[in-house]
């Protein structure tokens, strides 16, 4: 499998700016303007593998999670995005046709059986290093969510 780890958790907020300020003040999360807070650690795969994770509130009017109706979206960091997308296509999964090439890397999206839109991210090599955090929070420890059938999703 091409998935290396959690790349981020994005969720809808009625007041994302206020929420970013709260997380900055109490948990030390340093969000960029209108963006999210990045954490960087060392991956547990190849030596030197980067493990970037992003925490990011979105306005609740965003269409970024469409067609999912869930108020959150999980991003997985992957290697070899193309074969992964091809295998999802081949399996008949609802994967977007285009791989998006962006500043931060390459992205693809697929719907899981529970109706979550899942973001697959192959980070760009040139992404700037993130400074070590100075606040109490050192990283994302986990993303938990409710689902109708946990065992099916794990499969």
């Amino acid at each position: 499998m091409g998935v290396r780890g959690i790349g981020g958790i994005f969720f809808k907020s009625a007041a994302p700016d206020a929420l970013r300020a709260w997380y900055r003040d109490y948990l030390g999360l340093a969000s960029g303007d209108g963006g999210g807070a990045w954490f960087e650690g060392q991956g547990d795969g190849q030596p030197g593998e980067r493990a970037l994770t992003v925490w990011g509130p979105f306005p609740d009017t965003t269409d970024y999670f469409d067609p999912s109706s869930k108020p959150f979206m999980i991003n997985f960091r992957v290697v070899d995005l193309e074969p992964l997308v091809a295998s999802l296509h081949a399996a008949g999964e609802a994967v977007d046709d285009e791989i998006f090439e962006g500043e931060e890397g390459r992205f693809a999206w697929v719907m899981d059986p529970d109706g979550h839109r899942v973001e697959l991210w192959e980070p760009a090599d040139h992404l700037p290093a993130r400074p070590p955090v100075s606040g109490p929070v050192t990283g994302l420890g986990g993303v938990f969510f409710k689902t109708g059938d946990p065992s099916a999703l794990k499969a």
Partner: protein
Amino acid sequence: MDGTPAFTAWEPFPADTDYFDPSDKPFMINFRVRQLDDLLERLRTAGVEVDARLDEYDYGRFGWAMDPDGQRIELWEPPDPEGTSDP
């Protein structure tokens, strides 16, 4: 890169779990933290809703708080401060 190993869990829960209560959100985020006791104390002093509950396991200590959006957040202090432990 600061060399901190970054372990992040992904875990689906049954739809009827009460683990995220009193939040009505269908998701919960866990943050790795250092100095959990100090953090919880600061949050309480600031008037943030913090659980009285504090769980201690081999793989770390856990506290919970509610954010202004009504999200329950889990604060996890791994036993080794750099957070390599796998719960």
